[in-house]
C-alpha cells in the first residue's frame, strides 16, 4: 500500500471539477437503489466506491455512465451536466469485470472501436490503438482474438480500449474481480502506473475489495443501503473511521466496548474490562467503541495493554494471526511471523499505541 503513495500523490492533479453527484436518486421499479447520493471527485483523482452487495455502488457508476437514469439529482462530468445525456455523449471510458471485449474483433479492432465510432481516420485509429496497447504492455497481441488471451491480457486490452478515446473519466466496475490474486495485484499496480502517466484522468473505481481500494484510491466512499455512509482520504478513513460500519468494512477492526473516563495529556482515558487504556481523542464520557486494527496490536506489550487468553493461532506464511479473548470480547491480532507463537489457552498481554486507536460511537 505504501509503495503506491509516492507516484499516487505525485500523479494527483486536482486542478478542477472531475465528477459530481448532487442528490442523485436511482430507483428500479419501486426499489430505491441509490438515495440522495452526493459526492464530488476532483479532476485527476482516483476515488474508490466500496460497499457490500446491493449497497448502490454499481448503480452510482451506472448513473454516471448513463445506463441508469436518476429520478432525482444531477450528475456532472468536468462541470458539465450530463444527467440527461446518452452514454455515447458523455466522454467516458469504462472497464467491467467481464471485460466485455467484442469477440469477433481482433484486439487492435477492439481498441480502435471507440475511435471508429467517433469518426477518427483509419490510419490514426490503428496508430492510437497500438499506442494504447503499448501503454498497457500488450502491443504484441494486436492481431489476436479475445478468446486467445488470458484473463489478465483481456483486462489490459479492455483498459486500452477505454483509454483509446482519451476519456475525461475512467470508470472501473469491479474490473479485477475475475482475476486470480497475483494478476489482480499486478493489475492494480498497472492502473496506478497508468494514472501516474495520465494524471489528469479522473477514475471512479467500484470494488468490493477493500485492499484494492486502499492500494489505488486517493479517496474512498463507503456505501451502505444505497446511501453514502462515509467518504474521505483513504488513509484517514482507514485510520479514523467515522462509524462502526466504516471501521468494519474498510479493513478488519477490533471494536472494544470501553467506557470513557476522561482526557489526560491529550489522550482519552478509557476502561476496558479492568484495564485502563489511553486512546486517541474522544472528549466526553460514556460508553464508546475503541477501534484497534489487528496489526496495530502488539503481542507481549504491557504498556497501554490488557490481558487476553489465546484461543487460536494461525500461521499465514508472512504473518501469524492470533484469535484472543479478553473478557467477553474476541480480539484479533496480526503480527509478522513469530518464532515462538503462544500456545492456545495461555494468557498474554497485548498493547497498542494510543495514536492507532480512535474512539467511535457505538451506532
Amino acid at each position, binding site marked *: 500500500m505504501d509503495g503506491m503513495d509516492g507516484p499516487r500523490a505525485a500523479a494527483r492533479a486536482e486542478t478542477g471539477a472531475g465528477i459530481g453527484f448532487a442528490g442523485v436518486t436511482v430507483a428500479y421499479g419501486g426499489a430505491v437503489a441509490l438515495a440522495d447520493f452526493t459526492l464530488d471527485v476532483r479532476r485527476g483523482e482516483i476515488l474508490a466506491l466500496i460497499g457490500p452487495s446491493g449497497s448502490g455502488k454499481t448503480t452510482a457508476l451506472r448513473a454516471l455512465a448513463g445506463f441508469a437514469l436518476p429520478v432525482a439529482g444531477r450528475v456532472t462530468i468536468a462541470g458539465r451536466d450530463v444527467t440527461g445525456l446518452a452514454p455515447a455523449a458523455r466522454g467516458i471510458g469504462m472497464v467491467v469485470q467481464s471485460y466485455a471485449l*467484442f469477440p469477433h474483433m481482433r484486439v487492435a479492432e477492439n481498441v480502435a472501436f471507440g475511435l471508429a465510432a467517433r469518426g477518427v481516420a483509419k490510419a490514426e485509429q490503428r496508430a492510437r490503438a497500438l499506442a494504447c496497447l503499448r501503454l498497457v504492455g500488450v502491443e504484441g497481441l494486436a492481431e489476436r482474438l479475445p478468446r486467445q488471451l488470458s484473463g489478465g491480457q483481456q483486462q489490459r486490452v479492455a483498459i486500452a480500449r477505454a483509454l483509446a478515446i482519451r476519456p475525461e473519466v475512467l470508470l472501473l466496475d469491479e474490473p479485477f474481480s475475475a482475476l486470480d490474486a497475483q494478476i489482480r495485484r499486478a493489475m492494480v499496480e498497472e492502473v496506478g502506473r497508468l494514472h501516474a502517466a495520465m494524471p489528469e484522468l479522473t477514475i471512479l473505481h467500484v470494488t468490493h475489495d477493500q485492499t484494492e481500494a486502499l492500494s489505488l484510491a486517493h479517496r474512498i466512499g463507503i456505501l451502505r443501503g444505497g446511501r453514502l455512509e462515509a467518504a474521505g482520504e483513504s488513509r484517514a478513513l482507514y485510520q479514523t473511521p467515522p462509524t462502526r460500519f466504516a471501521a468494519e468494512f474498510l479493513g478488519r477492526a477490533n471494536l472494544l466496548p470501553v467506557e470513557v473516563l476522561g482526557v489526560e495529556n491529550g489522550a482519552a482515558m478509557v476502561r476496558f474490562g479492568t484495564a485502563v487504556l489511553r486512546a486517541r481523542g474522544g472528549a466526553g464520557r460514556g460508553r464508546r467503541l475503541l477501534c484497534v486494527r489487528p496489526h496495530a496490536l502488539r503481542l507481549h506489550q504491557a504498556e497501554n495493554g490488557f490481558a487476553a487468553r489465546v484461543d487460536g493461532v494461525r500461521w499465514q506464511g508472512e504473518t501469524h494471526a492470533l484469535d484472543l479473548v479478553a473478557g467477553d470480547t474476541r480480539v484479533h491480532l496480526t503480527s509478522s511471523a513469530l518464532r515462538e507463537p503462544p500456545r492456545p489457552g495461555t494468557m498474554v498481554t497485548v498493547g497498542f499505541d494510543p495514536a492507532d486507536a480512535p474512539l467511535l460511537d457505538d451506532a
Partner: protein
Amino acid sequence: MTRSWRGPGLGAPALALPALGLLASVVYPLALTAPTALGGGAPGRVFATSWFQAAALHTATIALAATTGCILLALMLGLVFAFLPFPGAGLVSRAIDTVIALPTFLVALAFTFFYGSAGVVNEALMALLHTDIAPLAFLYTKWGVIMIEITVYTPFVLRPLLAAFAQIDPAQLEMASSLGAGPWRIVRGIILPAALPALLAGGSLCLLLTVNEFGVLFFIGARGVITLPLLIYDKAIQEFDYPAACAVALANVALSLSLFALYRAVLRRLAADADV
C-alpha cells in the same frame, strides 16, 4: 476389467429385420425414381423445356425472396424482442413460435380469408371504393406465396436468432455505447456478427424448406406460379408422365441436397472459426 453390454444375444438378426423393412418401404421406392428418371433420356427431354426452366426459376426466386423476407423480418422482430422489450413481448414471441406448429395450408387458408378475393380486406375495400372487383389480387401471384411463406417460416429464423441474442453479454453493448457508438453501429458492429451463425443456420433451413414448399402453392393456386414440387405433382398425378415427374424430382432433390451441403459447410466453417 469391464465388459460392454451386448444385449440379450439377438445380435445381427434383430438389426437386420428393421433395416430390411426400411429398405423395402422407404429406400427402394425412393431409389426407383432415379432409374425411372434416367431411363429413356427423360432428363434431357425435361430439362430443356421452357416449363421446367420456368419452374426452376420460380422455385429459386420464391425461395430466395421468402428466405430474405424471413431473415429481415426475424431480424427486426428479434432486435425488438431482445433489446427493446415491451410489455407482453414474451407473449407475442411465443405466439409467433406457435406458427411453427401450424400446417402451411392453414396459414394459406387464413390469408385467403383475409386477403383473398372475398376476404375481409377486399370486402372492406370494395365497400369503400364502391366497386365489384376485388382491388387486392396479390395473394394469387408469387408475391402472395412469398408473403405466406415468410409468415410460415420466419419463426425458423427467429428462434435461433433470439437464442443467439440471449448469449450476447449486455456489457458489450454498454461498452460500445459508452465508447460513442450509436444504435445502428452497435447493431451492425456488435449484434449482427454475434448473431451471424444463427442467422445463417436459420436462413439456410428456411431456404431448404421454401425450395420444397408444396402446400402453400397448391392451396393458393397462384396463376402461372409453378415450382418444382408443383411440377412433380402435375406430371405424376395429372399427366401420368412418371419419367418426367421423376426427372423433375431428381432436379429438386439435387437442389435440396446442394442447399443442405451448403448449410452444413457454412456451419462447419463457423464452427472452425469459433475454434481458432
